[in-house]
């Protein structure tokens, strides 16, 4: 049978606040265990939570970013369960009245097509600490630095249909939240974690199948692999006439498999009820409007603008708009050189390639947008060929200066002097009697191919510096 995959995602996004959601402790990643845990974070007797306004601000920005309803009166609830790294024995979360209601979110797939994915809700909550099972000789260590870090849990509708769509959704989400500046989106440090709800149904049917939830997947690649694995597992069961059990599963990246968590761990009754230590969050219209004014151009808007303004393809526009930094860089290159197409090729090709190879972020690039624009300008004014430009770019990357400095220092200026070029063309023709004979005997169509040989020889003789356009013109004249 042909199966359709139905996927909904819950993204746990760490908000980039300076301090925790209910205490004044810092949220810096990687500090020594328990150095960022106050009496509130440790749930000492009599300690009380005080809401960090910045977390509300970020949550509302997110809501505006997906055009969602903002919960003008949202309520914190206690989610009760015992675990050693959950100091209070409950997590402060939002259950019935989340701060962000329904919205939609446009994603773009590899082929350039787009889809709208429904967002069910997003709510504020606090993170738990970490249990450390190594180095304690059979005991467990507790690090509460992360306890109380603000999270926005973003729940999608079951609108995704493949691993590729799930990954596109997460990439688009990553792009949105970093544009908004509400999270660093660092998946390796756990700033963006994901639970995957997945079920199968026969293609062409509407009823949802029974789902399994895969917990805590923390990279795009693992999301893809976990979904592929889970699809195969469920399809096997269904095709053997079995039934899917609704359960929580863990993805094991090392073994590339999902496995069931013990039912004891999942059969929790969380006994949600409104948190009596906090008042409801009441948001005024003015507050929302002020934040709306602050919204930057968002990735989707930018992508559409790039397509229109610069005549880029959907795919190129999506790549270039994926981060605010990259988009700004690209637009600075365009501003400096005036040619969006070539700028897009250089930014996506050479620049991103070099950054990847050197494992550098865009901010650390040795070649600035202005410098790259300077290089492209020299291609456009025929000072250098595209091929020479690659050499110049390498040299610029190594810190040898601006494009003009490199061209001058290395003598890479394109040869456009007609006398000089003519003598080189003559020399090549004189030394290629056989090829000339072949050329003269060929018809128009074949000649076009054969002329490449003579161009190549001239370029070789000029060490790549001959103006290819002029060489072509000269050859056409001399060989006719």
């Amino acid at each position: 049978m042909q199966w359709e995959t139905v996927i909904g995602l819950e993204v746990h996004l760490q908000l980039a606040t300076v301090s925790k959601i209910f205490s004044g402790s810092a949220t810096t990643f990687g500090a020594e265990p328990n150095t960022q845990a106050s009496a509130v974070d440790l749930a000492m007797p009599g300690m009380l939570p005080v809401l960090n306004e910045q977390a509300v601000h970020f949550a509302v920005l997110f809501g505006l970013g997906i055009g969602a309803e903002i919960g003008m009166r949202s309520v914190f609830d206690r989610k009760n369960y015992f675990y050693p790294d959950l100091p209070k024995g409950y997590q402060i979360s939002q259950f019935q009245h989340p701060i962000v209601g329904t919205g939609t979110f446009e994603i773009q797939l590899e082929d350039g097509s787009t889809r709208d994915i429904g967002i069910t809700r997003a709510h504020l909550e606090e993170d738990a600490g970490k249990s450390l099972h190594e180095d304690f000789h059979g005991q467990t260590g507790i690090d509460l630095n992360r306890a109380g870090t603000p999270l926005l849990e973003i729940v999608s509708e079951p609108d995704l249909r493949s691993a590729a769509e799930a990954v596109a959704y997460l990439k688009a989400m990553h792009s949105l939240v970093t544009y908004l500046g509400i999270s660093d989106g660092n998946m390796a440090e756990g700033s963006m974690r994901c639970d995957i709800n997945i079920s199968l149904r026969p293609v062409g049917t509407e009823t949802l199948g029974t789902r399994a939830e895969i917990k805590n997947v923390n990279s795009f690649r693992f999301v893809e692999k976990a979904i592929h694995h889970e699809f195969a597992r469920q399809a096997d069961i269904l095709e053997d006439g079995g039934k899917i059990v609704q359960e929580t599963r863990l993805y094991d990246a090392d073994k590339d498999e999902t496995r069931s968590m013990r039912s004891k761990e999942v059969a929790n009754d969380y006994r949600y009820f409104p948190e009596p230590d906090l008042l409801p969050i009441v948001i005024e219209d003015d507050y929302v409007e002020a934040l709306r004014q602050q919204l930057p151009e968002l990735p989707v808007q930018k992508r559409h603008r790039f397509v229109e303004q610069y005549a880029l393809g959907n795919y190129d526009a999506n790549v270039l708009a994926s981060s605010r930094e990259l988009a700004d860089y690209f637009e600075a290159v365009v501003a400096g050189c005036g040619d969006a197409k070539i700028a897009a090729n250089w930014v996506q090709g050479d620049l991103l390639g070099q950054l990847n190879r050197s494992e550098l972020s865009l901010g650390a690039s040795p070649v600035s947008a202005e410098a790259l624009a300077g290089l492209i300008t020299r291609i456009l004014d025929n000072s250098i060929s595209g091929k020479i430009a690659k050499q110049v770019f390498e040299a610029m990357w190594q810190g040898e200066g601006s494009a003009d400095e490199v061209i001058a220092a290395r003598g890479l200026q394109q040869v456009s002097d007609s006398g000089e070029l003519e003598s080189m063309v003559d020399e090549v023709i004189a030394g290629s009697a056989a090829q000339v004979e072949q050329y003269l005997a060929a018809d128009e169509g074949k000649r076009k191919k054969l002329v490449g040989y003579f161009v190549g020889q001239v370029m070789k003789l000029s060490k790549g510096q001959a103006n290819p356009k002029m060489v072509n013109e000269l050859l056409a004249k001399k060989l006719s």
Partner: protein
Amino acid sequence: MHNKSVAQLIAGLRAKHFSSVELTRCFLDRIGSLDPQLNSFISVTEDTALAAAAAADQRLADGTAAELTGVPIAHKDIFCTQGIRTSCGSRMLDNFVPPYDATLIKRFDELGAITLGKTNMDEFAMGSSNENSYYGPVRNPWNTDLVPGGSSGGSAAAVAALLAPAATGTDTGGSIRQPAAFCGITGLKPTYGRVSRLGMVAFASSLDQAGPMAHTAEDCALLLNAMAGHDPLDSTSSPEPTQDYTAQLDNKLDGLRIGLPSEYFGDGLDAATGERIDAALQQLEAQGATLVEVSLPNSQLTIPTYYVIAPAEASTNLSRFDGVRYGHRCTDPVDLHDLYTRTRGEGFGDEVKRRILVGTYALSAGYYDAYYKKAQQVRRLIQQDFMRCFEQVDVIAGPTTPGPAFSLGAKSDDPVAMYLEDVYTLAVNLAGLPGMSVPAGFVDDKPVGLQLIGQHFDEARLLNVAHQYQQVSDWHLRQPAAMTGGAA
């Protein structure tokens, strides 16, 4: 010195009739000689008290004294005190020494009060007789066969026995007013949110409120001045401005309308206690007040409503006591489940366990709507009953308790009979209103308390009514015979 009011002690210290060290020594000696009969203190902080008293004397000499400089008081052992064990009456916190002070403690420290020690209480403030303490029951100074009431029974007994001129207490369902009534002292539960809860070990977050316990309404006003105020670290503390709670004490009662809820004078009320309350009300009438019969029609729902909401909140507030970070931990746990079950099994007493079970049940899937959600709806009805009454009257009055103090052990095996003790006090917490208990006479040598209930943030008026009553009565000045001797 030991039988003076706080107001008189402040004046005496300023007039140098005695020093703070002398005063503090006097109370410490009384505690040493009399408390073995009462068990009203869990910890006595003699050394730090005397050092603070010496510093206070210096400030009194320098002329840099604050409002309460040099005045000794006792704090209920529910308030976290930096460097001083804070047990909350529980084995769970028997070894717990907080690294911080409750906001209330900080305020008293800043105003110069001297902490004599930490008073006994029902474990985690759950109880109406002070028999639920890990440190043993407190006895009533008027008759040591009787309970002092609870949960602030240690504070009430210490003040009644003149072991401290005043004390702090907390009141979740009557825990200041009921022991104040049983011990013949004056106690005030302020409006919910008037006094910070930060650093006060939580029982039921939406009901808990700290307040003063003393001999006179004037002393309660002085203490409330120290305690009241917004705390940015307690999100439920009220930004409503405070006032000088002594300013209206001398107002006359002419034109005051006092509401008497018929439900508070019905079958459950002990006849002799009712007579004492009637006499006190007639006295107030004679002072110019008008008595108006009113009704709180949902009163019969108060106990079930309270005994869903309070245990529900308590069941999760007490989850943090898991043996992981502080407090009691069982020896050699074999795994996590063992750590939890033995730590909590050993650390909590029966009444605490009972309420955790009830509360957990009330919040469970499938029961939430029928219990917790329904109780919150009824809570609103109870609040509305009061709001309707306050359209007609300025304060509401009635008995604090159905009868006077009972014998130790009389109700300890019958939780429901014990819960009925709070029938007149619980609704005030559910509605978040201020309430007082004022000494109003004796039945068989056992004190009786008159309860006064005010509108939100109308503490000054309650204190005014109580103070005026105390100008023409002397019940609040009576002292238990067995306690008037000792070192003094």
